[in-house]
């Protein structure tokens, strides 16, 4: 296997809330262009870990470099080189499709000309021409999420963080969504995704399983299944999560 470029380098990252260790000394590397799945039960610490990498939360201890920048000292450069899509909010519902693209393009410092080019290109590939002037609130959830993902990578970030991006979406739309993700990786964007869905886990290049704030397993889906002699990712997950001490939040 040839040497790959490391885009996320985490070493001993820990986050405590009082006596509670939400994230407990995790270390891992993510390589350029791969889809890195972050799995775990509710309350296992996935979101907290992701927030620390995005600069939304300050770690208690440990080191991490994202896109080659230190998350403590160079959070500005980190922010410039990542995209982010949260499960809770994707787009401003009372703005139109075009207005959302313009707003986020502006926020990420794209020029007017760039925004113009990219938005028409994006609307065409997502087949949104007819609804481009409609409010986002009027779009079906699946369309919104595809649009949100495309907007999150509008500025061609090195890494895009997806926090449970396909919550509440039917399997067909989910598959279409993953096609977009594959397309992004073909443009050498690294995808860091947290998810609950085990079928999604199969789409990832490598998976880390978090239990009680720690990474209990990290490998490709095939290797994980082999290692735990399980038939599916569901099995792997259950085997690991069963040992969890923490109750789901």
């Amino acid at each position, binding site marked *: 296997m040839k040497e790959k470029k490391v885009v996320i380098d985490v070493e001993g990252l820990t986050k405590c*809330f009082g006596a509670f260790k939400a994230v407990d000394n995790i270390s891992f590397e993510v390589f350029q262009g791969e889809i890195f799945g972050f799995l775990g039960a509710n309350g296992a610490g996935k979101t*907290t870990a992701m*927030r620390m990498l*995005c*600069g*939304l*939360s*300050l770690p208690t201890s440990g080191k991490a470099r994202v896109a080659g920048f230190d998350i403590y000292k160079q959070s*500005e450069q980190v*922010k*410039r080189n*990542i995209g*982010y*899509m*949260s499960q*809770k*909010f994707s787009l*401003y519902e009372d703005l139109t499709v075009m207005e959302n693209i313009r707003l*986020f393009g502006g*926020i*990420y*410092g794209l020029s007017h000309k760039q925004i113009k080019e990219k938005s028409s290109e994006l609307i065409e590939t997502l087949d949104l021409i007819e609804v481009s002037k409609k409010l986002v609130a009027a779009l079906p959830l699946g369309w919104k999420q595809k649009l949100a993902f495309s907007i999150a990578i509008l500025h061609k970030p090195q890494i895009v*963080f997806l926090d449970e991006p396909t919550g509440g979406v039917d399997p067909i739309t989910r598959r279409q969504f993953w096609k977009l993700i594959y397309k992004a990786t073909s443009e050498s964007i690294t995808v860091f995704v947290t998810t609950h869905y085990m079928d999604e886990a199969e789409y990832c290049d490598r998976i880390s399983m978090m239990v009680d704030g720690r990474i209990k397993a990290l490998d490709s889906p095939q290797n994980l299944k082999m290692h735990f002699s399980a038939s599916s990712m569901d099995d792997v997950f259950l085997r690991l999560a069963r040992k969890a001490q923490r109750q789901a939040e």
Partner: protein
Amino acid sequence: MFRDTRTLLILFGLPVVQILLFGFALSNEVKNSPMLVCDYAQDGVSRNLIDKFSANKSFNLEEVLLSHRELNDAFKKGRIKSALVFPPRFETELARFNEAELQFIVDASDPNTANILMTYAAGLVGDYQQSLLLDYSLPYSIQPEIRMLYNPELKPSFTFVPGLLALVLMLVSVMMTSVSIVREKEYGSMEVLLVSPVNPWMLIVAKIVPYLFLALINFITIMLLSITLLDLPVNGSALLLFAESMLFIVTALSLGILISNVAQTQQVAILISLAGLLLPTVLFTGFLFPIENMPLALRYFADLVPSRWYYLIVKSVMIKGLGLLAVWKETLILFLMTASLLFLSFRSFKVRLL
């Protein structure tokens, strides 16, 4: 319910606060109202009347002057609320014609207080007249000639429009900004904005600017309605009034940002803006209850309420027709309040979630 201390506090604490406030602190009664006397007569009767006024608790006689030249300035600066002027040969006229006139001038830019002072003064003069009648059993009559400064018709709109202006701008601006920022937190869009390379300062400025314009539209609407429908004069510079209102709106907007940094839900933001600001603004701006009559602690508290200063500025500029020179102190106070509120809200703005 008994485990919920906040509800308990509202349920049982609020009535106590209100009864104390309304019972003791807030009254329409006028006490120690500063006044000047201008005595051209300097005779026995004028001296007796001056004694009566200075012995009265409602008036605080600051000085007896020999000319009325200082009066105008004292009224403009708001140093005095009323003045008594005795014409020359007051006693002589009273003795010769059994009738004499004196002048009572009152600052009517606050019609409530003006009315009360007028009644008190008429009462005092009437009392004195009664005592004269007993002594001489002659029909003496002293006619107080009353002059209302700034608001000759004692129109209530002269106080309530500036008061309302302060109230509306305050509540609308505070609520609009705090809710609009907290809404982003609720929806989760704040998270997305915080991950983006946008400078938090830009975020706050972007929240302030649109609402500044909206509040200015509110200001213009109130002014137009007051001028056309209520015949309110704008005696001073409209431009100054506009600039001062802009300053006050920014004060309120930065207060809104400060609230949004504390509140996590829109309901809490609205509750703090309404409950936390409506009562103090209504009570301590000075358009319902004169602040001068409040106990010392409450007067100090009133000084912390930004709308109090804005109200003073609006009244001075709009009704008394004064310029920036007369209101620079109030403007400076408002400016310092704005600067510190802005500083605090920038400081307390959380760039991270946890």
